[in-house]
């Protein structure tokens, strides 16, 4: 078991967004987080990433620390749209806390960034401007950055939102590949069909309740509802 949540309440200073979240995630799991807008999916991911503190309940990481193990891919911000930065600069910034305490990146950091870009097929874009890339390429850059930070867990917040179907399907292949290589993936998505195709487990937010089930159970439950 890699991540465990027991009766977790997530939210902000002005109150909880979702309560009584329970799940256990094993190493190498591919978990889809699905549910309505505003039901607390992003809030949960931010809590897992350590951006906000749990309001109540238990959240534990085993065999890894949040800082060392987790690579986070947040939703796009307005700032990034016209941000002047090269692909290499952004990917390298995934190593920001792994420089061994020194202020500058060392050879190992640069090598890691190079490897991750290669893995995602964007090494030929290294010197290109991020703001001029297509949506799919931009997401790969941010995924490569997350990989630079991640040892074993990827937290992805709607990585295919805004992508055209072809780019989305390439992105899914990328993530599938990373999962096959042993990465635990926790991904927010609106795409239930792809969840049924790729996921091992599904965490569903509905109203103010959540349930954590295997894909098979989720599929049969859906069948019954229809």
């Amino acid at each position, binding site marked *: 078991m890699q991540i465990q949540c027991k009766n977790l309440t997530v939210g902000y200073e002005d109150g909880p967004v979702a309560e009584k979240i329970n799940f256990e995630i094993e190493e190498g799991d591919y978990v889809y987080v699905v549910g309505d807008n505003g039901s607390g999916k992003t809030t949960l991911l931010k809590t897992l990433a350590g951006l906000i503190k749990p309001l109540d309940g238990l959240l534990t990481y085993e065999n890894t620390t949040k800082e060392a193990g987790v690579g986070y891919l947040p939703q796009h911000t307005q700032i990034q749209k016209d941000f002047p930065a*090269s692909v290499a600069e952004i990917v390298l*910034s995934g190593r920001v806390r792994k420089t061994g305490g020194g202020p500058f990146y060392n050879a190992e950091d640069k090598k890691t960034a190079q490897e991750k870009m290669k893995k995602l097929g964007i090494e030929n874009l290294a010197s290109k401007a991020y703001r001029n890339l297509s949506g799919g390429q931009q997401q790969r850059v941010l995924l490569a950055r997350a990989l630079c930070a991640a040892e074993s867990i990827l937290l992805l917040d709607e990585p295919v939102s805004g992508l055209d179907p072809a780019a989305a399907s390439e992105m899914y292949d990328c993530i599938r590949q990373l999962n096959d290589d042993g990465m635990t993936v926790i991904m927010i998505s609106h795409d239930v069909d792809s969840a049924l195709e790729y996921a091992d487990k599904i965490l569903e937010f509905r109203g103010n309740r959540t349930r954590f089930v295997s894909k098979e159970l989720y599929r049969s439950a859906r069948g019954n509802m229809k």
Partner: protein
Amino acid sequence: MNELVQYLSYPFVRYALAAGVLTALCSSLLGVTLVLKRYSFIGDGLSHVAFGAMAIAAVLSISEEMIVVLPLTMICAVLMLKKGRNAGVKGDAALAMLSVGAMAIGYLLLNIFPTSANISGDVCSTLFGSTSILTLSSADVVTCVIMSVLVTGIFIIMYNRIFAVTFDEDFAKASGVNTEFYNLLIAVITAVVIVLAMNLVGALLTSALIVFPALSSMRLFDSFRKVIISSAVIAMTAAFVGISMSIVISTPVGATVVVVNIFIFAACSAIRSVKK
């Protein structure tokens, strides 16, 4: 040209020129981050606050104005950053209130407790900078050089973290970067830069030194490093040319430097549209 060379033979003119160029360097380094984080309004608001603080120092007849101006501006910088975060109309309006309020109080204080016979002259030079670079005091120049070196040094050492926090604060925080600290640092350095730049171009024009070089460079370059470097080069060139021109044709220093920056921005925009 001869006139400029003649002026440059005075050591003090050289020092002042150096101080001006260094101030421009600091403002431009920070400017890139502020513009990208959508914080340029903080620079503008702070310059108004600094004016108010300056007035308080003058009324209290504190000879070393920095002792009052710097801490007050820093405190407001931190407050503004916290407010700007929960953006929206309210934060915006609060900022406008703070900056206009500081100006009004400053001007009122200067009028109620006049410290010299020429109030409007004093106010004008605080707002728009010294009419001549020769009126800078030697203490100003020394402070300016020390602060500039400090700011530039900190910026270089923190460069990678500043990039990470500027590009994606959530990601940086998730990776374990103490983003609150870096935001605080940026706010405090902004305050220092504003106060420095005030000596050169006056309170109202300081934000020009912060935004113009950054925006000009962003027209030209696509990588963060190149934008930073070119921003520094543009700012220093504009300061050098502007100050030299102001000496030769005896125009107000601050306004001249800003106008040179405007021309550079126009040129960079033109180059960009030709490229595209």
